[in-house]
């Protein structure tokens, strides 16, 4: 079990180091407005890529139709400015119903 402890610790310390980069650099380095703009845009780009791969893929392959269909239902609801609760429950509900109906 020692190797597992070491793996968890390495993952924890490394992850915290990544997360400290922003707060540590902040105030010491003045970033040009253009770079700050790119960082905000970069965060959105990462999130959109994460949701796209999360909606469509599982372990490097297609995740099946039920999940992306549910996410699409959530996206349409969000686009129509539905409340946040409706978006999330709509997405999970649509996926659950599709699976119940036998769609993978």
């Amino acid at each position, binding site marked *: 079990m020692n190797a597992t402890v070491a793996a968890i610790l390495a*993952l924890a310390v490394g*992850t915290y180091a990544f*997360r400290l980069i922003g707060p540590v650099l902040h105030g010491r380095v003045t970033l040009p407005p253009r770079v700050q703009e790119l*960082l905000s845009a970069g965060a959105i780009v990462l999130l959109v890529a994460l949701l796209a791969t999360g909606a469509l893929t599982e372990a490097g*392959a297609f995740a099946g139709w039920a999940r992306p269909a*549910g996410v699409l239902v*959530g996206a349409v609801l969000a686009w129509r400015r539905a409340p946040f609760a409706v978006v*999330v429950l709509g997405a*999970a509900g649509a996926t659950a119903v599709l699976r119940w109906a036998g769609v993978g």
Partner: protein
Amino acid sequence: MRSLLRTPEVGSLVRDSSLVWLASGIVGVSFGAIAVAGGLPVWVPVVMSLVVYAGSAQFSAVGILLAGGGPLAAAATGLLLNTRTAAYSLAVADVLGRGRAARLLGAHLVTDETVAFALAQSDPARRRIAFWVSGLGLFAVWNAGVLCGALAGSALGDTSTYGLDAAFPAVLVALVLPALRTDAAVRRSALLGAALALAVTPYVPAGVPVLLALAGLALHGKGRTA
């Protein structure tokens, strides 16, 4: 901070956050359950959730441990997945607050959901409250969920029956939509980035596709009179 907590906007932030918390809590329960049902002792998912605190990296690391891939591969894959938090932490550095304690504690709360939630707010003051409200709540709910799941073990059955795997991407859609709606440059970059990430997903290790998506920023300056 106390006076800020009384403002009506905090109420709306808590209301909006609570669904993210609920979704994450349920994902946390399934994480704890999967880890223990797969044969890991209860403390592994519980401690990991407290000190690593990054859902996708935890799922991958535990998946690799359970598949017999070894601790080194588990840690390396988790770290690769979490490199994106470095970019997030740069994006929200001025949101955390000025004090040393706020920065050290806030850094640990930098996650996909919290950053998206903070950046979705319109003014700096609201961003800061949104970060802390959603971040502290998420930390509490995620870890409580993992503990419950780990104790319940395999009694829960297959959580994908409830469609919960669609909840997390839908949460992110709702959070990034305001930025995509109003900013054409961000929209172009994000679409190209997502297309790149999807195209390479079958061929590269987990975590790499999302990082490659940053190449989409190449479209960010186009069409601008600068």
